[in-house]
Protein backbone atom coordinates (compact mmCIF):
# COMPACT_ATOMS: atom_id res chain seq x y z
CA UNK A 1 0.00 0.00 0.00
CA UNK A 2 1.89 3.08 -1.13
CA UNK A 3 1.93 6.42 -2.88
CA UNK A 4 4.48 6.91 -5.59
CA UNK A 5 5.44 9.74 -7.92
CA UNK A 6 6.51 9.21 -11.51
CA UNK A 7 6.68 10.83 -14.91
CA UNK A 8 4.00 9.49 -17.24
CA UNK A 9 2.55 9.83 -20.74
CA UNK A 10 -1.21 9.47 -21.11
CA UNK A 11 -1.99 6.70 -23.61
CA UNK A 12 -5.77 6.71 -23.44
CA UNK A 13 -8.70 7.44 -21.18
CA UNK A 14 -12.22 6.09 -20.99
CA UNK A 15 -15.25 7.50 -19.21
CA UNK A 16 -16.01 5.80 -15.95
CA UNK A 17 -19.14 6.32 -13.88
CA UNK A 18 -20.71 9.76 -13.58
CA UNK A 19 -17.63 12.00 -13.85
CA UNK A 20 -14.56 9.78 -13.45
CA UNK A 21 -11.98 8.60 -15.93
CA UNK A 22 -10.03 5.35 -16.24
CA UNK A 23 -6.67 6.44 -17.61
CA UNK A 24 -4.01 4.23 -19.22
CA UNK A 25 -0.55 5.68 -18.60
CA UNK A 26 2.95 4.78 -19.64
CA UNK A 27 4.90 5.57 -16.50
CA UNK A 28 8.67 5.83 -16.19
CA UNK A 29 8.76 3.77 -13.00
CA UNK A 30 6.18 1.03 -13.51
CA UNK A 31 5.59 0.88 -17.25
CA UNK A 32 2.01 0.67 -18.49
CA UNK A 33 -0.55 1.11 -15.69
CA UNK A 34 -4.25 1.89 -15.38
CA UNK A 35 -5.49 4.37 -12.81
CA UNK A 36 -8.85 5.83 -11.82
CA UNK A 37 -9.00 9.63 -11.70
CA UNK A 38 -12.01 10.56 -9.58
CA UNK A 39 -13.99 13.54 -10.84
CA UNK A 40 -11.66 14.04 -13.84
CA UNK A 41 -14.54 14.99 -16.14
CA UNK A 42 -15.94 17.75 -13.92
CA UNK A 43 -15.28 21.34 -15.12
CA UNK A 44 -13.38 22.25 -11.96
CA UNK A 45 -11.46 18.97 -11.74
CA UNK A 46 -8.00 19.30 -10.19
CA UNK A 47 -6.61 17.26 -13.08
CA UNK A 48 -7.67 19.82 -15.72
CA UNK A 49 -6.21 18.95 -19.13
CA UNK A 50 -3.41 16.79 -17.66
CA UNK A 51 -5.17 13.52 -18.48
CA UNK A 52 -5.77 14.13 -22.17
CA UNK A 53 -4.04 11.54 -24.42
CA UNK A 54 -0.41 12.33 -25.42
CA UNK A 55 0.19 14.60 -22.40
CA UNK A 56 3.54 14.16 -20.64
CA UNK A 57 2.94 14.76 -16.95
CA UNK A 58 4.14 14.13 -13.46
CA UNK A 59 1.66 12.00 -11.52
CA UNK A 60 1.20 10.81 -7.97
CA UNK A 61 -0.51 7.43 -7.86
CA UNK A 62 -1.85 5.39 -4.97
CA UNK A 63 -1.45 1.63 -5.24
CA UNK A 64 -3.31 -0.37 -2.64
CA UNK A 65 -2.54 -3.83 -3.99
CA UNK A 66 -1.19 -4.87 -7.41
CA UNK A 67 -4.52 -6.57 -8.13
CA UNK A 68 -6.59 -3.40 -7.52
CA UNK A 69 -6.70 -0.45 -9.92
CA UNK A 70 -4.47 2.45 -8.91
CA UNK A 71 -5.97 5.77 -7.90
CA UNK A 72 -4.66 9.04 -9.26
CA UNK A 73 -3.96 11.64 -6.58
CA UNK A 74 -2.31 14.40 -8.59
CA UNK A 75 -1.25 15.16 -12.17
CA UNK A 76 0.86 18.13 -13.29
CA UNK A 77 1.58 18.80 -16.94
CA UNK A 78 5.24 18.72 -18.04
CA UNK A 79 4.72 18.87 -21.83
CA UNK A 80 1.18 19.18 -23.22
CA UNK A 81 2.22 18.65 -26.90
CA UNK A 82 -0.49 21.13 -27.82
CA UNK A 83 0.43 21.41 -31.51
CA UNK A 84 -0.55 17.77 -31.99
CA UNK A 85 -4.16 18.58 -31.08
CA UNK A 86 -4.41 21.29 -33.72
CA UNK A 87 -3.91 19.04 -36.76
CA UNK A 88 -5.79 15.88 -37.68
CA UNK A 89 -2.76 14.23 -39.36
CA UNK A 90 -0.65 14.86 -36.25
CA UNK A 91 -3.41 13.46 -34.02
CA UNK A 92 -3.51 10.33 -36.21
CA UNK A 93 0.30 9.92 -36.10
CA UNK A 94 0.42 10.34 -32.31
CA UNK A 95 -2.56 7.98 -31.92
CA UNK A 96 -0.73 5.31 -33.92
CA UNK A 97 2.31 5.70 -31.65
CA UNK A 98 0.37 5.29 -28.41
CA UNK A 99 -1.61 2.38 -29.88
CA UNK A 100 1.64 0.57 -30.70
CA UNK A 101 3.08 1.16 -27.23
CA UNK A 102 -0.18 0.12 -25.62
CA UNK A 103 -0.41 -3.07 -27.65
CA UNK A 104 3.25 -4.13 -27.29
CA UNK A 105 3.85 -3.54 -23.59
CA UNK A 106 2.42 -5.69 -20.81
CA UNK A 107 1.11 -3.92 -17.70
CA UNK A 108 3.47 -3.20 -14.82
CA UNK A 109 6.84 -3.67 -16.56
CA UNK A 110 9.02 -0.57 -16.69
CA UNK A 111 10.70 0.07 -20.05
CA UNK A 112 12.74 3.31 -19.85
CA UNK A 113 13.81 3.09 -23.52
CA UNK A 114 10.21 2.99 -24.79
CA UNK A 115 9.17 5.74 -22.36
CA UNK A 116 11.93 7.98 -23.69
CA UNK A 117 11.17 6.95 -27.30
CA UNK A 118 7.48 7.87 -26.94
CA UNK A 119 8.28 11.18 -25.23
CA UNK A 120 10.74 12.26 -27.93
CA UNK A 121 8.54 10.73 -30.66
CA UNK A 122 5.56 12.90 -29.63
CA UNK A 123 7.87 15.93 -29.65
CA UNK A 124 8.84 15.05 -33.23
CA UNK A 125 5.15 14.71 -34.22
CA UNK A 126 4.69 18.32 -33.13
CA UNK A 127 7.44 19.70 -35.36
CA UNK A 128 7.99 17.37 -38.34
CA UNK A 129 6.07 17.21 -41.60
CA UNK A 130 7.04 13.75 -42.86
CA UNK A 131 4.61 12.10 -40.47
CA UNK A 132 4.32 8.75 -42.24
CA UNK A 133 8.08 8.31 -42.22
CA UNK A 134 8.16 9.37 -38.56
CA UNK A 135 5.55 6.76 -37.60
CA UNK A 136 7.38 3.99 -39.52
CA UNK A 137 10.68 4.90 -37.82
CA UNK A 138 8.91 4.91 -34.45
CA UNK A 139 7.48 1.44 -35.13
CA UNK A 140 10.91 0.02 -36.01
CA UNK A 141 12.52 1.48 -32.89
CA UNK A 142 9.65 0.50 -30.65
CA UNK A 143 9.91 -3.14 -31.77
CA UNK A 144 13.65 -3.02 -31.06
CA UNK A 145 13.16 -1.75 -27.49
CA UNK A 146 10.30 -4.18 -26.85
CA UNK A 147 12.62 -7.09 -27.72
CA UNK A 148 11.35 -7.88 -31.22
CA UNK A 149 14.11 -6.33 -33.35
CA UNK A 150 14.17 -7.92 -36.80
CA UNK A 151 17.42 -9.55 -38.01
CA UNK A 152 18.11 -7.98 -41.38
CA UNK A 153 21.77 -8.64 -42.23
CA UNK A 154 21.60 -12.35 -43.07
CA UNK A 155 19.23 -14.99 -44.36
CA UNK A 156 17.79 -16.57 -41.24
CA UNK A 157 17.81 -20.06 -42.78
CA UNK A 158 21.15 -20.42 -44.64
CA UNK A 159 22.91 -17.62 -42.66
CA UNK A 160 24.48 -16.17 -45.79
CA UNK A 161 24.70 -12.40 -46.11
CA UNK A 162 21.81 -10.79 -47.94
CA UNK A 163 23.10 -9.62 -51.30
CA UNK A 164 20.62 -10.84 -53.88
CA UNK A 165 17.93 -8.81 -55.63
CA UNK A 166 15.18 -11.01 -54.24
CA UNK A 167 14.84 -10.65 -50.49
CA UNK A 168 11.87 -11.62 -48.36
CA UNK A 169 10.81 -10.65 -44.86
CA UNK A 170 9.49 -13.51 -42.76
CA UNK A 171 7.40 -12.34 -39.77
CA UNK A 172 7.56 -15.82 -38.24
CA UNK A 173 11.36 -15.95 -38.36
CA UNK A 174 11.60 -12.25 -37.44
CA UNK A 175 13.90 -11.22 -40.26
CA UNK A 176 15.07 -11.61 -43.84
CA UNK A 177 15.34 -14.69 -46.07
CA UNK A 178 17.21 -15.04 -49.34
CA UNK A 179 15.30 -15.92 -52.52
CA UNK A 180 16.32 -19.60 -52.59
CA UNK A 181 15.49 -20.26 -48.92
CA UNK A 182 12.18 -18.37 -49.25
CA UNK A 183 11.05 -21.00 -51.81
CA UNK A 184 11.50 -23.78 -49.25
CA UNK A 185 9.06 -22.48 -46.63
CA UNK A 186 5.30 -22.14 -46.65
CA UNK A 187 4.81 -19.25 -44.17
CA UNK A 188 3.56 -15.90 -45.48
CA UNK A 189 6.41 -13.68 -46.69
CA UNK A 190 6.71 -10.03 -47.67
CA UNK A 191 8.97 -9.32 -50.69
CA UNK A 192 11.34 -6.38 -50.03
CA UNK A 193 13.95 -4.64 -52.14
CA UNK A 194 17.57 -4.59 -50.87
CA UNK A 195 17.27 -0.78 -50.63
CA UNK A 196 14.39 -1.10 -48.18
CA UNK A 197 16.35 -3.65 -46.14
CA UNK A 198 19.27 -1.17 -45.85
CA UNK A 199 16.83 1.56 -44.87
CA UNK A 200 15.28 -0.62 -42.16
CA UNK A 201 18.77 -1.39 -40.82
CA UNK A 202 19.75 2.29 -40.71
CA UNK A 203 16.58 3.42 -38.92
CA UNK A 204 17.40 1.29 -35.89
CA UNK A 205 20.77 3.01 -35.46
CA UNK A 206 20.18 6.70 -36.24
CA UNK A 207 18.96 9.62 -34.13
CA UNK A 208 15.83 11.57 -35.11
CA UNK A 209 17.60 14.32 -37.06
CA UNK A 210 19.66 11.73 -38.94
CA UNK A 211 16.46 9.89 -39.81
CA UNK A 212 14.97 12.94 -41.43
CA UNK A 213 18.01 13.31 -43.67
CA UNK A 214 17.29 9.85 -45.09
CA UNK A 215 15.24 9.85 -48.26
CA UNK A 216 12.73 7.08 -48.87
CA UNK A 217 10.87 6.61 -52.16
CA UNK A 218 7.09 6.01 -51.99
CA UNK A 219 7.76 2.39 -52.97
CA UNK A 220 10.23 1.93 -50.12
CA UNK A 221 7.75 3.51 -47.68
CA UNK A 222 5.06 1.11 -48.89
CA UNK A 223 7.40 -1.86 -48.44
CA UNK A 224 8.37 -0.74 -44.94
CA UNK A 225 4.66 -0.41 -44.10
CA UNK A 226 3.87 -3.92 -45.40
CA UNK A 227 6.82 -5.40 -43.47
CA UNK A 228 5.84 -3.62 -40.24
CA UNK A 229 2.15 -4.53 -40.58
CA UNK A 230 3.04 -8.20 -41.12
CA UNK A 231 5.50 -8.16 -38.22
CA UNK A 232 2.98 -6.56 -35.82
CA UNK A 233 0.24 -8.97 -36.90
CA UNK A 234 2.52 -11.92 -36.14
CA UNK A 235 3.70 -10.56 -32.77
CA UNK A 236 0.28 -9.48 -31.51
CA UNK A 237 -1.71 -12.27 -33.14
CA UNK A 238 -3.98 -9.65 -34.72
CA UNK A 239 -3.59 -6.67 -37.04
CA UNK A 240 -2.83 -3.43 -35.22
Amino acid sequence: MSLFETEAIVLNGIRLGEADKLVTLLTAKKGKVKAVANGARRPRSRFGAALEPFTHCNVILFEKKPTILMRMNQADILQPFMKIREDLDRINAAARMVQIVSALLPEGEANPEIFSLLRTGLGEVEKRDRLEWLVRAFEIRCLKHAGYQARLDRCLICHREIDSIRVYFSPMNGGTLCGSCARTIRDPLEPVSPGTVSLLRLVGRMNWSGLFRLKATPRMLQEVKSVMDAHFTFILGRPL
Partner: protein
Amino acid sequence: MDGTSQNPLDQLIDELRKLPGIGRKTAQRLAFFLLKMPAEEARGLAQAVLDVKERLRFCRWCNNISEEEVCRFCADPMRDRTRILVVEETSILFAIERTGEYKGLYHVLVGSLSPLDGRGPADIKAQSLLDRLKLGETKEVIIATNPTIEGEATAIYLTRLIKPTGVKVTRIAYGIPVGMDLEYADEVTLIKSLEGRRELA
Protein backbone atom coordinates in the same frame (compact mmCIF):
# COMPACT_ATOMS: atom_id res chain seq x y z
CA MET B 1 -32.28 -21.43 -12.70
CA ASP B 2 -33.62 -20.85 -16.20
CA GLY B 3 -35.60 -17.79 -17.33
CA THR B 4 -39.02 -19.49 -17.31
CA SER B 5 -38.96 -20.58 -13.67
CA GLN B 6 -37.52 -17.27 -12.36
CA ASN B 7 -39.82 -15.38 -10.00
CA PRO B 8 -40.76 -11.78 -11.01
CA LEU B 9 -38.58 -10.19 -8.31
CA ASP B 10 -35.42 -12.01 -9.46
CA GLN B 11 -36.25 -11.12 -13.03
CA LEU B 12 -36.60 -7.43 -12.10
CA ILE B 13 -33.25 -7.52 -10.25
CA ASP B 14 -31.58 -9.09 -13.31
CA GLU B 15 -33.07 -6.44 -15.60
CA LEU B 16 -31.98 -3.56 -13.33
CA ARG B 17 -28.43 -4.94 -13.20
CA LYS B 18 -28.13 -4.33 -16.93
CA LEU B 19 -28.17 -0.55 -16.26
CA PRO B 20 -24.80 1.23 -16.08
CA GLY B 21 -23.32 1.51 -12.60
CA ILE B 22 -25.90 -0.83 -11.03
CA GLY B 23 -24.55 -3.88 -9.21
CA ARG B 24 -26.34 -6.73 -7.46
CA LYS B 25 -26.91 -4.88 -4.15
CA THR B 26 -28.20 -1.66 -5.74
CA ALA B 27 -30.44 -3.66 -8.09
CA GLN B 28 -31.88 -5.48 -5.10
CA ARG B 29 -32.48 -2.22 -3.21
CA LEU B 30 -34.21 -0.65 -6.23
CA ALA B 31 -36.30 -3.77 -6.83
CA PHE B 32 -37.59 -3.75 -3.23
CA PHE B 33 -38.31 -0.03 -3.53
CA LEU B 34 -40.31 -0.69 -6.72
CA LEU B 35 -42.14 -3.52 -4.97
CA LYS B 36 -43.33 -1.15 -2.24
CA MET B 37 -44.29 1.56 -4.73
CA PRO B 38 -48.03 2.25 -5.36
CA ALA B 39 -49.18 0.28 -8.43
CA GLU B 40 -50.04 3.51 -10.24
CA GLU B 41 -46.49 4.91 -9.93
CA ALA B 42 -44.93 1.61 -10.98
CA ARG B 43 -47.16 1.55 -14.05
CA GLY B 44 -46.13 5.13 -14.83
CA LEU B 45 -42.45 4.16 -14.72
CA ALA B 46 -42.98 1.09 -16.90
CA GLN B 47 -44.97 3.15 -19.38
CA ALA B 48 -42.28 5.86 -19.48
CA VAL B 49 -39.64 3.22 -20.32
CA LEU B 50 -41.87 1.81 -23.08
CA ASP B 51 -42.66 5.28 -24.45
CA VAL B 52 -38.97 6.15 -24.73
CA LYS B 53 -38.38 3.05 -26.83
CA GLU B 54 -41.56 3.11 -28.89
CA ARG B 55 -42.38 6.77 -29.43
CA LEU B 56 -39.01 8.46 -29.76
CA ARG B 57 -36.88 8.59 -32.87
CA PHE B 58 -34.16 10.74 -34.43
CA CYS B 59 -35.12 14.03 -36.08
CA ARG B 60 -34.65 13.73 -39.85
CA TRP B 61 -32.72 17.00 -39.96
CA CYS B 62 -30.60 17.32 -36.82
CA ASN B 63 -30.61 13.77 -35.28
CA ASN B 64 -32.02 15.15 -32.04
CA ILE B 65 -34.36 12.80 -30.20
CA SER B 66 -37.95 13.58 -31.14
CA GLU B 67 -41.49 12.26 -31.05
CA GLU B 68 -42.19 13.62 -34.52
CA GLU B 69 -40.26 13.21 -37.75
CA VAL B 70 -38.89 16.74 -37.22
CA CYS B 71 -37.85 17.83 -33.70
CA ARG B 72 -39.26 20.89 -31.92
CA PHE B 73 -36.16 22.99 -32.60
CA CYS B 74 -36.11 22.31 -36.34
CA ALA B 75 -39.89 22.83 -36.56
CA ASP B 76 -39.86 26.14 -34.62
CA PRO B 77 -40.22 29.06 -37.12
CA MET B 78 -38.98 31.52 -34.46
CA ARG B 79 -35.48 30.02 -34.29
CA ASP B 80 -32.56 31.58 -36.17
CA ARG B 81 -32.13 29.35 -39.21
CA THR B 82 -28.84 30.92 -40.25
CA ARG B 83 -26.91 29.24 -37.41
CA ILE B 84 -26.31 25.57 -36.69
CA LEU B 85 -24.63 24.49 -33.47
CA VAL B 86 -22.95 21.08 -33.75
CA VAL B 87 -22.76 18.80 -30.68
CA GLU B 88 -21.56 15.23 -30.14
CA GLU B 89 -24.57 13.97 -28.16
CA THR B 90 -28.17 15.00 -27.43
CA SER B 91 -27.30 15.44 -23.73
CA ILE B 92 -25.00 18.35 -24.70
CA LEU B 93 -27.80 19.90 -26.78
CA PHE B 94 -29.99 19.95 -23.67
CA ALA B 95 -27.16 21.49 -21.59
CA ILE B 96 -26.84 24.32 -24.14
CA GLU B 97 -30.60 24.73 -24.41
CA ARG B 98 -30.79 25.16 -20.61
CA THR B 99 -28.76 28.38 -20.93
CA GLY B 100 -31.65 29.94 -22.88
CA GLU B 101 -29.09 32.07 -24.78
CA TYR B 102 -28.83 30.16 -28.04
CA LYS B 103 -31.71 30.60 -30.47
CA GLY B 104 -30.37 28.89 -33.58
CA LEU B 105 -30.66 25.30 -34.83
CA TYR B 106 -28.69 22.23 -33.75
CA HIS B 107 -26.98 19.25 -35.33
CA VAL B 108 -26.21 16.12 -33.29
CA LEU B 109 -23.32 14.02 -34.62
CA VAL B 110 -24.27 11.00 -32.46
CA GLY B 111 -20.60 10.33 -31.74
CA SER B 112 -17.13 11.68 -32.30
CA LEU B 113 -13.98 10.74 -34.20
CA SER B 114 -11.52 8.80 -32.10
CA PRO B 115 -8.23 7.89 -33.76
CA LEU B 116 -7.26 6.07 -30.54
CA ASP B 117 -10.30 3.81 -30.57
CA GLY B 118 -10.59 3.46 -34.33
CA ARG B 119 -13.80 5.52 -34.72
CA GLY B 120 -13.68 7.24 -38.10
CA PRO B 121 -15.81 9.63 -40.21
CA ALA B 122 -18.33 6.86 -40.99
CA ASP B 123 -19.24 6.73 -37.29
CA ILE B 124 -20.59 10.29 -37.09
CA LYS B 125 -23.52 11.99 -38.84
CA ALA B 126 -21.46 14.53 -40.79
CA GLN B 127 -22.91 13.94 -44.26
CA SER B 128 -26.39 14.99 -43.14
CA LEU B 129 -24.87 18.25 -41.85
CA LEU B 130 -23.33 18.91 -45.27
CA ASP B 131 -26.69 18.13 -46.90
CA ARG B 132 -28.32 20.75 -44.65
CA LEU B 133 -25.69 23.34 -45.63
CA LYS B 134 -26.50 22.74 -49.31
CA LEU B 135 -29.98 24.20 -48.71
CA GLY B 136 -28.25 27.59 -48.49
CA GLU B 137 -29.94 29.00 -45.35
CA THR B 138 -26.93 28.54 -43.04
CA LYS B 139 -24.41 31.35 -42.58
CA GLU B 140 -22.52 30.00 -39.55
CA VAL B 141 -21.72 26.57 -38.09
CA ILE B 142 -20.72 26.67 -34.41
CA ILE B 143 -18.73 23.60 -33.41
CA ALA B 144 -19.40 22.69 -29.79
CA THR B 145 -17.63 19.33 -29.51
CA ASN B 146 -15.83 18.48 -26.26
CA PRO B 147 -12.39 20.06 -25.68
CA THR B 148 -10.83 16.55 -25.69
CA ILE B 149 -8.67 14.83 -28.32
CA GLU B 150 -11.82 13.21 -29.76
CA GLY B 151 -13.70 16.51 -29.81
CA GLU B 152 -10.75 18.36 -31.35
CA ALA B 153 -10.27 15.70 -34.05
CA THR B 154 -13.99 15.95 -34.86
CA ALA B 155 -13.85 19.77 -34.98
CA ILE B 156 -10.84 19.77 -37.33
CA TYR B 157 -12.46 17.17 -39.59
CA LEU B 158 -15.74 19.11 -39.78
CA THR B 159 -13.89 22.35 -40.51
CA ARG B 160 -12.11 20.65 -43.44
CA LEU B 161 -15.50 19.48 -44.76
CA ILE B 162 -17.38 22.73 -44.30
CA LYS B 163 -14.78 25.35 -45.35
CA PRO B 164 -15.10 24.65 -49.10
CA THR B 165 -18.85 25.39 -48.90
CA GLY B 166 -18.05 28.99 -47.87
CA VAL B 167 -20.09 28.79 -44.65
CA LYS B 168 -18.41 30.46 -41.65
CA VAL B 169 -17.13 27.91 -39.10
CA THR B 170 -16.61 28.92 -35.46
CA ARG B 171 -15.55 26.98 -32.37
CA ILE B 172 -16.88 27.63 -28.84
CA ALA B 173 -14.31 29.32 -26.55
CA TYR B 174 -11.79 27.43 -24.44
CA GLY B 175 -10.82 28.69 -21.04
CA ILE B 176 -11.29 29.04 -17.34
CA PRO B 177 -14.56 27.80 -15.83
CA VAL B 178 -16.54 30.61 -14.18
CA GLY B 179 -15.92 30.69 -10.41
CA MET B 180 -12.58 28.88 -10.62
CA ASP B 181 -9.42 30.13 -8.92
CA LEU B 182 -6.82 30.86 -11.61
CA GLU B 183 -4.07 29.63 -9.31
CA TYR B 184 -5.29 26.06 -9.77
CA ALA B 185 -5.81 26.13 -13.54
CA ASP B 186 -3.58 23.83 -15.58
CA GLU B 187 -1.15 25.13 -18.21
CA VAL B 188 -3.13 24.02 -21.28
CA THR B 189 -6.32 25.69 -20.06
CA LEU B 190 -4.42 28.90 -19.22
CA ILE B 191 -2.68 29.00 -22.63
CA LYS B 192 -6.00 28.42 -24.40
CA SER B 193 -7.69 31.15 -22.36
CA LEU B 194 -4.87 33.57 -23.22
CA GLU B 195 -5.17 32.71 -26.92
CA GLY B 196 -8.91 33.28 -26.76
CA ARG B 197 -8.74 36.59 -24.85
CA ARG B 198 -10.89 39.50 -26.05
CA GLU B 199 -10.94 43.23 -25.71
CA LEU B 200 -13.15 44.67 -23.00
CA ALA B 201 -15.59 47.27 -24.17
